């Protein structure tokens, strides 16, 4: 029985800031708990796609109806707390009498496999009764966990990396294996957990899974002390990193976020199926403009990705390409321990064969990442500076002698991104944050000048440090012009330097432009609002890129 245990685990992890201690806590938990419960624990703590049984909104209205409680008051509380599950848990303490009920512990399996799924088939009134029953029959200290599971919002600062480390320690097995076993969909069951902690490695067990990705570090100045010939240079594309897998004749496309996206890209699956060999290739997916030979905006790629089973006309209007970076496996043989130079050679050789043996369509969709050959480090700078010309966001520099290992290990790959575009803009709106930023105004909207008027052009919520956030929050409260629900318009007085990766025409926005990854890079207290940039300046950036 273990909701209680899981709840204790949640509290322990939540009140601990040390990674090592967290690993220890998890290790103990897994050691002392049943396999099935452990599998659900891993699902809950790592699941980015946890099932949501009840939305935050409906949880609040259920509470409001069950206890005849004003909804506006729940909303006021939400502004302070920033999490529906927690608000309801805090409010429940006013509703539930002391400890006079016989509480029973339940298993996570019972809750997640039975009680909660059943909620969705109930009619509103029965649902109310059932939720009330759940709330009133579970010890108050476990209710936060219950409500968080119900709303599918489990975030306690436990990454999949910590789970991997604690399991690896628990059974004394290499992390890479555990991390590989955890790739893809982890479906909770006694078997899946037992397989995860099996000390014996069955060579075929990982067959249907992608490998953990190798991630690039940020460029380090010190590598320019080394010879330019030690490195391989490629463009850094702004698409979706994926692993293209063909094993036993079956194709699967896995994103770095571990989503299987075959359904979104049927044309790629079809073309790849025609290749005779089996393989695992690391690469990038992009939506391509074949006329200009440039990638299309990232938002269009997202649009493609969100469309399951896209029609022929969408496939035609938003055509995709796959750019191969690296070969990880060929016909069942793991290549990751070979050095990059060799992997690249093998990749080129095979690709050449595949393209020459098949129809033209394959070569349209399946490309290889072009290598760049700067003669010296000065030329690297020039390449980087010009990277926007071909629609890339900089360079990726790879150590030719590196093997392919999971994660962001030092000394293997580096990303060398082009300097962001920047504009100085005026703060005009602020909105209350949620989660850990609840109760503070942390979501900001910025404007640029156009004919003496300030036009909103971007929203950003990252880039300020905690002290600045608090200072700005105080300022916002004192300088509010109007309030619309959680949003305040503020006196146009504060200027910020906003950095972003790309700028594009957009019909959806009043400003006519849309920027990618906007973030605050400086609070320009030295500037007056008349010194802020104009929309014209933004348009110039667009033309010059």
């Amino acid at each position, binding site marked *: 029985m273990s909701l209680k245990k899981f709840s204790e685990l949640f509290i322990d992890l939540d*009140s601990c*800031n040390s990674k090592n201690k967290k690993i220890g806590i998890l290790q103990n938990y897994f050691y002392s708990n049943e396999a099935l419960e452990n599998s659900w624990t891993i699902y809950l703590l790592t699941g980015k796609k946890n099932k949501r049984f009840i939305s935050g909104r409906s949880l609040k209205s259920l509470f409001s109806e069950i206890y005849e409680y*004003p909804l506006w008051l729940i909303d006021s*509380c939400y502004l302070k707390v920033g*999490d529906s599950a927690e608000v309801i848990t805090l409010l429940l303490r006013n509703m539930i009498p002391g400890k006079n009920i016989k509480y029973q512990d339940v298993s996570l399996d019972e809750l997640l496999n039975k009680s909660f799924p059943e909620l969705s088939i109930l009619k509103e009134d029965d649902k109310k009764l059932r939720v009330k029953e759940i709330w009133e029959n579970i010890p108050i200290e476990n209710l936060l966990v219950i409500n968080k599971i119900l709303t599918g919002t489990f975030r306690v600062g436990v990454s999949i990396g910590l789970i991997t480390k604690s399991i690896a320690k628990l059974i004394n097995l290499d992390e890479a294996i555990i991390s590989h076993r955890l790739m893809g969909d982890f479906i909770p069951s006694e078997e899946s957990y037992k397989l995860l902690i099996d000390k014996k490695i069955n060579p075929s067990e990982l067959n249907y899974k992608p490998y953990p990705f190798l991630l690039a570090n940020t460029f380090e100045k010190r590598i320019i002390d080394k010879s330019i010939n030690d490195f391989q240079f490629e463009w850094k594309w702004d698409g979706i990193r994926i692993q293209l897998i063909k094993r036993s004749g079956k194709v699967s496309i896995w994103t770095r976020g571990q989503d299987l996206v075959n359904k979104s890209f049927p044309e790629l699956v079809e073309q790849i199926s025609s290749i005779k060999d089996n393989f695992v290739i690391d690469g990038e997916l992009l939506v391509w403009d074949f006329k200009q030979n440039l990638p299309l905006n990232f938002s269009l790629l997202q649009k493609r990705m969100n469309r399951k089973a896209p029609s022929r006309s969408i496939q035609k209007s938003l055509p995709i390409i796959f750019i191969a970076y690296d070969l990880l496996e060929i016909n069942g043989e793991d290549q990751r321990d070979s050095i990059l130079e060799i992997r690249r050679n093998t990749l080129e050789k095979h690709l050449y064969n595949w393209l020459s043996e098949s129809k033209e369509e394959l070569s349209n969709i399946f490309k290889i990442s072009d290598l760049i050959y700067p003669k010296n480090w000065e030329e690297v700078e020039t390449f980087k500076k010009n990277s926007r010309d071909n629609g890339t966001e900089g360079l990726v520099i790879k150590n030719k002698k590196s093997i392919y290992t999971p994660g962001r290990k030092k000394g293997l790959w580096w990303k060398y991104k082009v300097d962001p575009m920047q504009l100085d803009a005026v703060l005009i709106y602020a909105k209350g944050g949620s989660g*850990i930023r609840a*109760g503070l105004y942390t979501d900001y909207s910025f404007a640029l000048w156009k004919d003496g008027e300030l036009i909103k052009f971007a929203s950003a919520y990252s880039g300020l440090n905690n002290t600045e956030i608090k200072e700005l929050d105080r300022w916002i409260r004192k300088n509010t012009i109007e309030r619309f629900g959680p949003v305040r318009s503020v006196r146009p007085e504060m200027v910020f330097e906003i950095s972003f990766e790309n700028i594009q025409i957009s019909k959806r926005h009043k400003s006519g432009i849309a920027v990618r990854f906007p973030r605050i890079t400086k609070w320009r207290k030295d500037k007056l609002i008349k010194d802020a940039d104009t929309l014209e300046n933004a348009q110039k950036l667009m033309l010059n890129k």
Partner: protein
Amino acid sequence: MTEGITDLIKYTSSGLYCEVADVWIDPNKPVKRAIITHAHMDHFTLGCNEYISTYETAVIIKERIGKEINIKTYDYEKEFKINGIKISFHPSGHILGSSQIKFSFAEEIWLITGDYKRQKDETCKEYEIVKTDYLISESTFGLPIFKWDEPQKTATDITKWVNSSQEKTSILFCYSLGKAQRLLNEISKTNFINNIYTHSSIYRMNNCYKKLGIDILETKKLEQTKNNTDFKGSLILLPPALNKSSSLKNFKDIQTGFASGWMSIRALRKRSGYDKGFSISDHADWIAILRTIKESKAKNVFFHHGDSESLNKYLKEKNSINVLEFEYKK
């Protein structure tokens, strides 16, 4: 008040003000005459010509500011008169010496609660229910998400937190006056076995409480420990201002906690950067505020300090009492 002329207590830029008695309550600027509800420094301003408070409050204030001031003291319940207005102090249960202030004038009673709590606290007198016509209540924690645990539960959690990390030094941040003494009192009733060290600001207040007849658990003054003292397994109480200060570097391998009512909210707990938050407050929670309004039999209520929007709206919807908002007057 609707007419705006007969308000006995008004809100001014210097704080609450009784015009007829010509006296300010907890003014935030130097004024002629100030009544002080309690000795927390955000309720006290130096430079007034004349102060009035309870005896305990006067003793603590003088200890804190380290000098003499012109302060007149009255016992709880003892009525005194200024310009024909009858005034008296009544225990508010916030900290030692803290009081509500009752004003009676022409058959009308006004009560200023000051900071108060309704929970048990052995280091000060319990809140006294005072009947009134007009109630000015604090509303620092004026939302129903605030509901305090029994202080013994929080103290037990603290003890567990320290005892289960014997290899570490546990540093608990808390306000030097009131909160620290209440925590020590509650901790003394748990099975706490280790050493407790207190920062000089807390140590001084402990002594002050003892002088006023309150039993406080014996602690060691942090500043008097030797350089090579091993703090492993002990509990150190520090004022919150010292969090992240360089003085923390003197301790190896620490875990930090903060004891405050705000710590019942996870986002605030996470943002504060302490390892652990202990929810315990010397203010009234939502239920206590509502209960106090009811028991005071007040027909009119004002809120002062903190989040009053929700309370105002809630009470107006319930229609049980006349909720007033201060008109701002210079």
